């Protein structure tokens, strides 16, 4: 099959995500492009969890409404999702747990007979999916063996029983000619992009949907040669990162909007002390605790304005894992080039969904900042032509390095003298010219997709671009996606939209944050298609809405 989707559902604690990951990994290795959305409520037991995996021969970065196969470990999965089933699609369910229409298998009994734990129904579910995909037993066996390091034999027995009972192949996959691509989540790509740009220390307090950056880096910190630190709260996280950067380490912090709110004083401190730090903000629906495990693009205004005082910042908003990798690396390098706070604005959909990583153009390296050459007396805040002062770090003989949150003279001593205050405000703002030049000329700040010069263009950002690009292709319209949001690439955006008579803003938020921002820069967005239920657009849904607008 060219393009198909599998939905696996159960309650929290049923191991749904694990099976989703195995199925996605399997399809990826078969050369499919994969998109895997992990849908779960904010609880540990109970509730309704599902993994929605789409596989396609061409590049995809969003789900469809309709699915080809539903594997249900509870009745709720069938009730909620049976309407999505395509004609000719199959529902497989655990006949020991409930009754439904479709192919009932005694998953519960298989587990019992093998002496397994109830959660091992997910192994059975995986084997069933393997069978329905036409995989040989040996392939299923190997994956189960590799994935279940504990109770391997029991899991194998369960898998075998399920495989044998599952019936025939319903999703016929051809082994693809395509070279398999690595799979990763947005958060993994952010972590790796930062590591490639020289991340030394990642500091974070857990908060969904940013938490898995911390988990991933902590699990791999030795191989990656860096260190992770989980302190008492987000204030400590951000200030620790600043202290470490002052002393010469490349640092990054990450949280959701609520945790980032606590970091606002540190953003301002980074700006005044000219200390480079990368802040990752992964959006989830607010205000406040909001909807913790779902998605939004509602924190754009917050990230653009967080921190008191006037200062420069660099903000990127990746829309897929390739961009997450490249743009996080860019954010780190730009933070150090200009000694300013930089931000990676992501969202639950990008952070926690699994995508194919196409490292093609994604070369990220650690670019050195401007370092002190050892000549003359060291001044941390030396006023230079471009506003960037050479860096030295404590421990350097001949340099006294004085960083500060107060307004200061070039040496770093507090000042309240009018002329000195004026001079330092201007010194920091001098960096704007270089930064703006980089954004408008050297960097790809705005991406475009679809037929050039089409009358209608979709203006979108972040993870929403995945659905937009696919829908636009089907409808023959263009897509414009700014990936750098501050300094705002107004020129590049205007020229990308030059031919468009109608601009449609598509965002997962309730006001149209990017559309409003674009309007401030003279770009008129005539129509807005907004979604704010915490779920990303599906292809079917967005297509209908765009058709409705273009008539």
């Amino acid at each position, binding site marked *: 099959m060219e393009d198909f989707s599998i939905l696996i559902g159960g309650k929290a604690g049923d191991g749904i995500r694990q099976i989703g990951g195995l199925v996605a990994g399997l399809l990826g290795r078969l050369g499919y492009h994969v998109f895997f959305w992990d849908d779960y409520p904010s609880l540990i037991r109970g509730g309704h969890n599902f993994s929605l995996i789409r596989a396609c021969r061409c590049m995809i970065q969003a789900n469809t409404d309709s699915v080809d196969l539903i594997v249900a470990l509870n009745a709720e999965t069938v009730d909620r999702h049976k309407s999505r089933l395509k004609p000719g699609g199959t529902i497989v369910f655990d006949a020991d747990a409930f009754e439904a229409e479709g192919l009932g298998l005694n998953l519960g009994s298989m587990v019992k007979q093998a002496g397994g734990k109830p959660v091992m129904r997910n192994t059975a579910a995986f084997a069933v999916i393997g069978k329905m995909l036409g995989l040989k037993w040996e392939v299923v066996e190997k994956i189960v063996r590799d994935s279940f390091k504990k109770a391997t034999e029991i899991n194998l027995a369960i898998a075998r029983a399920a495989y044998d009972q599952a019936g025939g192949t319903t999703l016929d996959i051809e082994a693809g000619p395509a070279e398999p691509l690595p799979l990763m989540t947005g958060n993994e790509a952010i972590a790796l992009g930062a*590591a490639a740009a020289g991340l030394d220390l990642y500091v974070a307090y857990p908060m969904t949907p940013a938490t898995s950056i911390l988990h991933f880096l902590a699990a791999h910190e030795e191989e990656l040669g860096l260190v992770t630190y989980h302190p008492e709260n987000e204030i*400590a*996280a951000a200030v620790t990162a600043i202290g470490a*950067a002052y002393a010469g380490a490349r640092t990054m912090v990450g949280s959701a909007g609520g945790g980032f709110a606590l970091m606002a004083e540190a953003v301002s401190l980074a700006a005044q002390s000219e200390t480079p730090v990368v802040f990752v903000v992964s959006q989830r629906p607010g205000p406040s605790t909001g909807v913790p495990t779902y998605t939004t693009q509602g924190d754009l205004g917050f990230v653009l304005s967080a921190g008191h005082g006037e200062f420069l910042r660099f903000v990127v908003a990746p829309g897929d894992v390739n961009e997450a990798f490249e743009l996080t690396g860019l954010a780190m390098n730009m933070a150090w080039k200009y000694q300013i706070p930089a931000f990676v604005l992501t969202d639950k959909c990008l952070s926690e969904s699994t995508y194919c990583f196409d490292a093609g153009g994604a070369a990220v390296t650690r670019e050195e900042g401007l370092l002190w050459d050892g000549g003359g007396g060291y001044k941390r805040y030396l006023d230079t032509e471009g506003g960037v002062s050479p860096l030295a770090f404590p421990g350097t003989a001949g340099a006294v390095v*004085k960083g500060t949150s107060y307004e200061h003279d070039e040496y770093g001593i507090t000042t309240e003298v009018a002329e000195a205050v004026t001079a330092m405000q201007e010194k920091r703002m001098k960096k704007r010219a270089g930064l703006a030049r980089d954004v408008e000329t050297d960097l790809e700040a705005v991406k475009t997709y679809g037929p050039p010069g089409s009358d209608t263009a979709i203006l979108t950002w972040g993870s929403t671009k995945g659905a937009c690009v696919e829908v636009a292709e089907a409808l023959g319209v263009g897509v414009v996606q700014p990936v750098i949001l501050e300094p705002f690439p107004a020129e590049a955006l205007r020229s990308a939209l030059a031919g468009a008579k109608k601009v449609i803003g598509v965002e997962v938020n309730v006001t149209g944050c990017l559309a409003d921002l674009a309007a401030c820069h003279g770009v008129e967005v005539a129509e807005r298609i907004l979604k704010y239920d915490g779920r990303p657009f599906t292809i079917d849904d967005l297509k209908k809405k765009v058709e409705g607008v273009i008539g």
Partner: protein
Amino acid sequence: MSETGLDTYAENTWCKGCGNFGILSAANAAFKTLAAEGRPLETIAIASGIGCSSKIVDYIDVNSFYSIHGRVPPTLTGIKLANRGLSVIGFTGDGDAYGEGLAHVIMSAKRNIDVTVVIHNNRVYGLTTGQFTPTSPRGFRGKSTPRGSVEHPLNPLDLMLAAGATFVARGFSVKADHLADLIVQGVKHKGFALIDVLQPCFTFFNTYKFYNEKVYELEGHDVSDLEAARARAREWDYGAEAERIPIGLFYRVERPTYDEEVLRGLVLAARRERADIGAFIRSHM
């Protein structure tokens, strides 16, 4: 003001008679001693928060980071994690450390990060012109408590012992030599060191007479005995009354430090080995 050669050109703006002067001379003397003992001045990094006390970083010509209110411990922690080779010392006020940033002080003690924190404890907010702090006595009449504070004071030494600090001391700004020695010991101590310094605020809470009458130096105290340390710490509850107020080293114990345990020998600020991220992706993802 001092012959240490550590002065900057910054104008000193502390009030005449302020206890901070004693702490400044003690710090300078301590840094000189440490330098003479093989810790060159460029390997010293100090940080402060916000308050009269925190101005000290402008007055000492060593590496410094003038951080924000309450956030001295995380600033120190970041510096130490970036470069364990540095001696990292914080100077800040009681409002800053025990009010705005108390959680950081407790957690830094708990994790035993190898830094030293010197608290200029004038038991008042000096820079904001005289409000009560967590260590002001009950009944303290400040501008925010004109009828007298109804809160009991916090005993920071007792709290630090409970939090697991591995070095707990008290100094008195008038006894600068004694304090200098405590700072040297605190810096040399491998682990988290807290030195609470009784520092009269000449302008908003003049405690010179009170301390001069009550303060005595600990003698014959076993610094490895936690219970004895607790008993000594409880001799005075930071209230308006006191029989006697001990100063000196209350408690010292060796425990592995957070930085040595998590850094795997790395100096993050000078990391040379870089992982091959492409290879990592090929093998893991």
